Structure formats: C-alpha cells, structure tokens
C-alpha cells in the first residue's frame, strides 16, 4: 500500500516540477512575442493559450503582453490572437463542466455560461495597466465587430455593473463598466439609448457618487458615445440638452467635492467631468459658468469656517486645476467641434445650392436666363459672405480671436 502512495507522491512531485519549469519559461517565451518572424509569434500565442487554460502560474503575464500585438499589421498574427482570446475567455470549456452540474433550464444554462466568461474577463481587465487597457479596448472592439459577444453577455454585463447579481463586488462592477465602455467604442448606440443612459446616471451618479474613480470611469464611458462626424455624410454631433439631468448631477458632484480633499482620484474625476460637459452638452458654457461660481462660493464658505483652515489650500489647488482643464477643453471645443459644425453646415448649404442650380438648369430655361440665375445665386452668396472661396476664413479668425483674447482677458467670467 505504501508503494502505491509512494508512486502517487512521485507523480505529484514530477507534476509540480514540470509546472514550475513551465512557469520559469514564461518570461523567455514572452520575448518571442516581440520577434519579427510571424510564426514565432503565433507559436508563442498558442503556448500562452494552453498555459493559461492549464492554470500555469504566471501565464497571465504572457496574456497581458500579448494584448499589445493587437496593433500588429500581420494578418495571420492578428487572427491567431483573436482566436486565442475567444477560446480563453469566450468559450471556456471549464465553465461548461461547471454548469453541467446545475440542471437548469436552457436559458439559465446559457446565462450562467456567459456569467462565468464575463467574470474571467473582468478579472483580467482589473489587472491591466493604462497602456494595456488601450490594447484591450481595441481587442474587444474587434471581437464585438466579429460578433463574438451575444446579447446575453451584454445583459450579464449590465447586471454586474448595477450590482444586481449576487456577490458582485464594487471592483467587479467597475470592471463591467469598463468592458461596457470598450464595447461602446465599437457601438456607441449601446450607451446612447435612453434606458441605458438612465441606468448609468442612476447607478454611478446617484447611488455611488462618492466613489470618484467610478465616476471618472463612467464619464469615460459616456465619452465613447461621442464621435466627430464626417463632413460628407452630414451627420449631426451627438449632443444632449443642457438641462439634461446628467449635467445637473455631474455639476453637483463636482461642486460638492471640491472641498473634500481626502480622495486621491479627484483630479481624474474632475477632468473627465469637464470633458463630458464639453463633448456632450449643446451649450456647455452655461453649465461651466455655474460650476465655476459654485466652486468658488464653496471654497470661500469653507475658508470662513474656523475649523477648516488647512483644508482650503488643497481646495484652492483643485480650483486652479479646474480652470486649466476648462481652458484646454474650451480650446478643443472651439477649434475642433465648432469648426467642424460650421464646415458641415456650409457643406449642407453648398449642396442645397448645387441641387437648386441643377434643378434650374434642367428645367430647360434659355441660356441667358440661367446665366442670370447663376449670377443672382452668386450675389446672394457674396451678401451672406459665404462664397465658396473664402468660407472658412472669417469663422477661423473669429474663433482664434475668441481663444486669444476674450476668454482670458474678457470681463464676463473670470
């Protein structure tokens, strides 16, 4: 009998040694990921895929390094990478065996499968650093476009975010939000639709508004709904009304938090809130003006409070930072967004004019009268100051003038 145990013990021992030696080889194989030879890279990807599924200790490090390969130009490598991630995260065979134990209805079966997959994905996302998050975003965008995410996955994600499923920690909820954001960059309508938007506002901005990091992540997700439209397609900017409840909530969070100096994520949250207001509101200036005045009032109030003398200098620092962020966003807003809007409007006007000209000439009028029509049209253009040659300059000049002079030296706000 002891011989049996001896044998078993030896087997476990060699299994452990094998496991350890594979772990040691992981850093060396990660170097192969940077090779110029694409077969090397593909073999390395395949290795990490198996290593991770067999739960080798630091295989996760290899997976994280693989993420940056998403930007490679080699088609074979990209395909191998996408396939590896689908196999690891979206078709986990271990999850299938876990679920078989629960004799549930088919709907629940699918849902539990999706839940386990999302849980694995969230665990990975939480360990990534800033650069790797950008790679992960591109990866998830491509997976979404390849239709690897089902509706069930999305439902599970929303439920995890709202912490409706049992045993979801705040960190997991944040990971779910980040993944929703990544999918939204491929499909902005996911967040633009009203129910989801209200959901986000209720969960992040009401129930958990004291978690500044979550608010910052929420704002980043909202920013994904924004895209600069192409001139030719004459799309409209996606903008919300300035009195939308979203902006009210964001304003309140920002103004109330300026005197709370204990949370280290304030800078992150403040810059993302300002960005959201500038990107998504139709008239950001009014909201921003209110924010500035209210913050200023809150700081002076807290400075007069005899207990809080030491708190105020950090708040003043926050306030100054806020002014800087507003300046940069304003520049972005005027230079890029407003100019783009003007260009689109001019494009639409020109298109209308051209179609009118075409309609007039196809009506078969005599040449002289059509010439006079054209000269009438061009006179109108000159009167409007919008002739095709110089349509951009007066607006560009006006915008530069606003940037250079009126914002900082004008009397109306600061």
């Amino acid at each position: 009998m002891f011989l049996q145990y001896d044998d078993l013990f030896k087997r476990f021992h060699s299994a452990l040694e094998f496991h350890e030696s594979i772990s040691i080889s992981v850093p060396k194989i990660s170097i192969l990921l940077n090779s110029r030879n694409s077969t090397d890279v593909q073999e390395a990807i395949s290795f990490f895929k198996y290593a991770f599924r067999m739960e080798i200790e630091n295989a996760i490090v290899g997976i994280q390094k693989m993420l940056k390969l998403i930007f490679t130009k080699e088609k074979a490598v990209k395909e191998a990478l996408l396939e590896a991630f689908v196999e690891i995260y979206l078709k986990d065979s271990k999850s299938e065996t876990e679920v078989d134990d629960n004799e549930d209805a088919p709907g629940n079966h699918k849902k539990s499968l999706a839940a386990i997959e999302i849980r694995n994905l969230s665990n990975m996302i939480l360990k990534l650093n800033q650069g790797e998050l950008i790679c992960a975003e591109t990866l998830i965008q491509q997976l979404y476009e390849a239709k690897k995410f089902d509706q069930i996955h999305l439902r599970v994600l929303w439920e995890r975010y709202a912490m409706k499923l049992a045993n979801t920690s705040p960190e997991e909820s944040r990971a779910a939000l980040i993944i929703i954001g990544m999918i939204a960059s491929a499909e902005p309508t996911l967040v633009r639709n009203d129910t989801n938007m209200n959901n986000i506002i209720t969960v992040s901005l009401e129930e958990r508004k004291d978690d500044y990091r979550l608010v910052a992540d929420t704002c980043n997700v909202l920013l994904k709904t924004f895209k600069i439209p192409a001139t030719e397609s004459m799309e409209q900017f996606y903008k919300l009304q300035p009195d939308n409840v979203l902006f009210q909530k964001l304003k309140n969070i920002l103004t109330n938090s300026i005197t709370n100096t204990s949370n280290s994520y304030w800078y992150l949250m403040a810059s993302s809130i300002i960005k959201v207001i500038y990107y998504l509101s139709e008239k950001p200036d009014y909201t921003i003006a209110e924010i500035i005045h209210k913050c200023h009032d809150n700081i002076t109030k807290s400075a007069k409070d005899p207990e809080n003398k030491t708190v105020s200098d950090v708040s003043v620092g926050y306030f100054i930072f806020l002014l800087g962020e507003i300046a940069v966003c304003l520049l972005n807003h005027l230079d890029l967004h407003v100019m783009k809007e003007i260009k689109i409007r001019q494009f639409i006007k020109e298109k209308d004019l051209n179609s009118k000209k075409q309609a007039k000439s196809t009506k078969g009028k005599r040449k002289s009268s059509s010439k006079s029509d054209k000269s009438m049209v061009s006179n109108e253009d000159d009167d409007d100051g919008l002739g095709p040659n110089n349509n951009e300059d007066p607006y560009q000049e006006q915008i530069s003038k606003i940037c250079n002079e009126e914002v900082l030296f004008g009397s109306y706000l600061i």
Partner: protein
Amino acid sequence: MESIASDYFGDKYSLRVRRSACLTMAKFMTLSMKYTRKNRVILADVLEKSKDCTIRSNAIISFGDLLLRFPNEIEHYTGKIFSCLEDKDFQVKSNSLKVLSRLVLADMIKPKGHISKIAALVTDPESSISSPARLFFVELGKKNNAYIYNFLPDIISNLSGSKGLPENRFQEMITFLFELLEKSRNTESLVTKLCSRFNNTK
C-alpha cells in the same frame, strides 16, 4: 495665477497650489497667444529656478506642447529646454530627453550646437536615460544620415577636452556614433571639417 507661479522658492504659497498654478498657467498659454506672449517669461524662469522637480518636469512638457502650438513665440527659449538635459533630477532629465527627441525628429526645432548635450546622455549611467538617447540617434540616422555627419564636429569639440566628458565615456559615445555612419563619401568632408577644427585648438 501669475503671482503664484512666480513664487519659485515656495515662500508664499504651498506646494500643491504652486503645482496646480504652473500647470494651469501652461494650459492657459495653449489657449491664448496673447497670454503666451505676456507670460512665457514666467514659465521659462520656472524651468530654471523652481526648486520642485515635478513643477520643472511639467514645465518642460508644457514647453514642448507650446512649441508645437505657437512655434514663433517660444523659439528663443529652446536653449533653456536643452539646458534641462543637464538637470540633477532624473525625472526632469528623462522628460526633457523625451520632449526634445520628439521635437527634433519631427523637425520642429534645430538643435545646432545643443546636440552635444544629448550626445553626452548616450553614456549616462542610468539605462533608462542612455537607451532613449541612443534610440534618438539611431532614428536621426535613419531619417537622414547626413545629420550625424553634420553634428559630429560640434559634438567632438564640445565634449572633448577638460570641460567635457570623462575619457572613457567620451570614447564609448564616439564609438557608438561612428557605428551609425554609413556612406564613405561624406567621411572625407568630415575629416576635412575636423582638421579645420584642429586649428582652433590650443
């Protein structure tokens, strides 16, 4: 805002407020050319005189961005940015190297004589400074090998001798740079230039 930023020694205002103020002042400068003209002197002084290294590294990065936005306004302060390559603090050196490599490789500024300061960093004991410096020269050589030929005489004059690098570092740096040279045609003109410099030596 300006008064807070010009408090270089931290007498009147606390560190946090000064850091925010310098950064915000730089952001205001990206917005408005008029503001830039008025206050660029303050930013340049901050770069030289401020005691806090975070403020100085932020100022360098802001200068880099301002050079892209308003090149004509900031041009004659480029000398000050190059002198930050010799700063004592590691973070400041590293940031100025990154900013300057980006600007020079994008042809936004011409380093002229200051290139010797970047060359000196090629043999810096810290690998996270010497490897970007080497990468910079490799990229510069890829872009146009003639640049290295043109800069070599300046580098040699500035860094040799008693005021320059210690002997072993100088040799290592020169070996590295010579390895980057490609064609033999320019070598003759290089030799001529170096010989003409001998006349100026003691």
